[in-house]
């Protein structure tokens, strides 16, 4: 395959390198707190990728929610539990070997499918934002086409809020 070394392509390679490096580090670090930092790197890398692909609103949301809220939440959870925690030295148990083989097989299948398929190329010149700024276009779609899932997701957030409070609060005496 002929690779055109346009600035976009170079940016893509750098970003994906950063994402994969962070993801691998995530699983090879011993200290849990470093892992939380590595996941922050993955989240920000993904956000950069979204912005490169012209999805500014999703990119910004990714930074706010994932890199901001979720990473901080993880930090809190680590601090509130045993923050000295260390992932124990890896032992090659049967389960681990099977998981590794299964994931490698899945990766091979995915790789094969993705490489073998001529992916549909829509009309790349279409303005997917219909002439609006990206955020406006997304807002229009969210409140017209996807009103019902939008309402349902608000219920989901209520459930998560209430649920997190119930589970995290210390049990009162007499319960």
């Amino acid at each position, binding site marked *: 395959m002929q690779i055109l070394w346009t600035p976009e392509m170079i940016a893509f390679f750098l970003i994906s390198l950063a994402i994969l490096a962070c993801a691998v580090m995530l699983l090879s670090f011993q200290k849990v707190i470093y892992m939380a930092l590595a996941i922050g790197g993955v989240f920000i890398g993904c956000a950069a990728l979204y*912005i490169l692909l012209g*999805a500014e609103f999703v990119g910004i949301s990714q930074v706010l929610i994932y890199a901001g809220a979720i990473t901080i939440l993880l930090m809190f959870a680590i601090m509130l539990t045993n923050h000295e925690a260390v992932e124990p030295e890896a032992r090659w148990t049967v389960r681990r070997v099977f998981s590794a083989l299964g994931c490698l097989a899945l990766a091979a299948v995915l790789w094969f499918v993705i490489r073998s398929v001529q*992916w549909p*190329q829509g009309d790349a010149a279409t303005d997917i934002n219909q002439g609006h700024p990206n955020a406006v276009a997304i807002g229009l779609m969210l409140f017209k086409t996807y009103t019902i899932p939008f309402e349902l997701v608000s219920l989901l957030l209520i459930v998560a809020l209430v649920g997190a409070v119930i589970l995290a609060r210390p049990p009162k005496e007499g319960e």
Partner: protein
Amino acid sequence: MGGAGAIQVPATSLLALAAILFCIGLYGALTRRNLIIVLVSIELMLNAANINLVTFSRLGASPGLHGQVFALFTITVAAAEIAVGLALLLAAFRTRRSTHVEDMDQHKW
């Protein structure tokens, strides 16, 4: 940068990146013993799905915003899921002072 204009990055590369990320996440979720890392690995899998969605929204069969909106929903759902997950983790830590999978041994079959 904006909605219009061709993107030079081939879809194949983006999808391959997502696939690798997904497999790393799945491997981590199945093998790690610290529950926080298991939760984080699940987030990796969801991020891989989001990369797919945003890629297809730009380079898919009929480019449109459906994919980006889907990605936004996924991000929200992931936030809800991890909030409950971490609260549950705190509750589990309170009952047994550990965040490791193998300490979860109340259930013997």
